[in-house]
């Protein structure tokens, strides 16, 4: 019989477990900023956590069984923003890391929502489209009633590529973020060189938004051997085994690209800056947020206005994180998490709603 530790290890080695990496990050930030242990625990642990088995009756009369999890982080009551992830790689700690990441991100952006993230272990070919619709209905009924929410969830693309190259708005926001990195980090450089671990498939979407005279996009196959200014990490794992071989000055960390604490130490000694996923995938959350507001008829802004405000949100976020990092002589990653933790602890629900209301300048009605 397997022990608790062995069972965990069979899912993923503990040092690669994204939830544990995030927990350590928080523990370190809280200790550094002298934040009470109980506050860290409230922040870190999900408010509600549910694991379930979902039997789906197929068209041919047979029953297919899926398993999944749902995680909720505490926020202003009765305002749930969330999504369903269908992915074959879903497991509890992975989903917990995603949910905690989104929760911190929302606090960093001051977006006032409680977060519900549902992950279903699922392969594309397992269900027909009709069965999939049925599953979503069943989720609305079962999981939502258990968790006490009746809001309609948005369907999220699997985070595999969705984190970085998402919709039009999030792509636009991410392109803006790269422009900001250039403006803040390389103010005197005319043209910076970028590559990513997914290569041109990824860069096609995002980097097309960037002016060619200021950004040179290098293809993946040459990305490793050439020195670049910015390396977009989306899928790969950077551990102590390969951290010394990356030739770049800045790493943009996607949500699926894991950088282990050992690798972070090596990269820091090589003076390679990490722009953390909490900042990088902010555009996705903004996209989520605008969709939710539009869906629930709270927001009647036009597309261009939403885009302008979202880009402003990204600019403010990066400026805040950057200046906090320089003022306190800390890395961008530590700065982003410190700000998220501070904002999470210091801002009350009422203040959050006020920020929200001001941001959408009267178009929001709660």
């Amino acid at each position, binding site marked *: 019989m397997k*022990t*608790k*530790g062995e069972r965990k290890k069979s899912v993923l080695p*503990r*040092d690669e477990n994204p939830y*544990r*990496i995030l*927990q*350590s*990050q928080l*523990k*370190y930030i809280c*200790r*550094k900023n002298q934040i009470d*242990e*109980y506050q860290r*625990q409230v922040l870190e642990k999900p408010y509600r956590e549910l694991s379930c088995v979902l039997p789906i009756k197929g068209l041919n009369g047979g029953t297919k069984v899926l398993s999944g999890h749902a995680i909720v982080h505490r926020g202003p009551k009765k305002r749930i923003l969330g999504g369903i992830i269908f992915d074959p790689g879903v497991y509890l700690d992975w989903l917990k890391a995603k949910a905690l990441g989104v929760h911190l991100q929302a606090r960093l952006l001051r977006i006032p929502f409680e977060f519900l993230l549902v992950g279903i272990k699922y392969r594309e070919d397992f269900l027909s489209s009709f069965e999939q619709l049925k599953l979503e209905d069943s989720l609305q009924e079962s999981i939502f009633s258990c968790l006490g929410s009746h809001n309609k969830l948005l369907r999220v693309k699997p985070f595999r590529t969705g984190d970085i190259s998402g919709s039009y708005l999030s792509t636009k926001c991410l392109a803006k973020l790269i422009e900001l990195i250039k403006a803040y980090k390389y103010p005197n450089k005319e043209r910076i060189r970028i590559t990513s*671990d997914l290569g041109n498939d990824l860069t096609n979407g995002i980097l097309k938004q960037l002016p060619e005279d200021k950004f040179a996009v290098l293809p*993946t196959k040459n*990305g*490793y051997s050439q020195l670049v200014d910015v390396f977009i990490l989306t899928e*790969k*794992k*950077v*551990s*102590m*085994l*390969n951290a010394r*071989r*990356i030739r770049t000055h800045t790493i943009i960390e996607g949500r699926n690209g894991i950088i282990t*604490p*050992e690798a*972070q*130490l*090596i*990269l*820091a*000694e090589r003076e390679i800056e990490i722009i953390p996923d909490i900042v990088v995938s902010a555009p996705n959350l903004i996209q989520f947020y605008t969709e939710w507001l539009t869906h629930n008829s709270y927001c009647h802004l036009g597309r261009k206005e939403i885009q302008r405000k979202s880009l402003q949100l990204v600019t403010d976020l990066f400026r805040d994180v950057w200046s906090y990092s320089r003022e306190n002589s*800390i*890395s961008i990653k*530590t700065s982003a998490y410190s700000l998220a933790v501070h904002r999470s602890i210091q801002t009350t629900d009422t203040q959050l709603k006020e920020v929200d209301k001001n941001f959408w300048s009267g178009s929001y009605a709660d």
Partner: protein
Amino acid sequence: MLINDGLLGTTTGLHFDCEVTFAGAIDFCTEKINRDREEAIQLLRQEDSSAHSYFRYGLAHQISRYIGSLSNNFKGIYIHGSSVENSSGPASDIDLIILTTKKVEELELLLTTLSGELEFYYNQLLGTKFFGDDYTGFLDVQLVDESDIKSRRGYGAVLTSVHYAPIKIWEPDNSDKNLST
């Protein structure tokens, strides 16, 4: 261990394994107290201070080798406190001092992670939760640089203290100090 990372290249390297580290520390403890493995674990569970001190010393030695392998900036790792005074209990931490040329905050993050991992395995080994979520850490590591030693500031003063001299358990020229207390 070989890892093919595609774009990032194929490379080899060290890897910290808590289970192996704990097994090594128990072996060291077993040897020192002259008992078999089961008896050593039993003594640890019975809160025997000698067993806990030897166990922690063995653990510290292996952790130091691992930490030392991560950076060229480390000039020495020292152990002090209850582990070398033969007064460790089940809830004692391991006190280390790292002499480094450059203090990097990411090292503290790594040590926080490492401490969490060690707590998890330690709780499993003893079958009791000695370290809860609110515990400050299984590892108490202080970073010291040359300027701290020169100005006798903080733990820099401890390193040069005549009355409270820590034991050097790792230095960078691959000649790890012998395991002895």
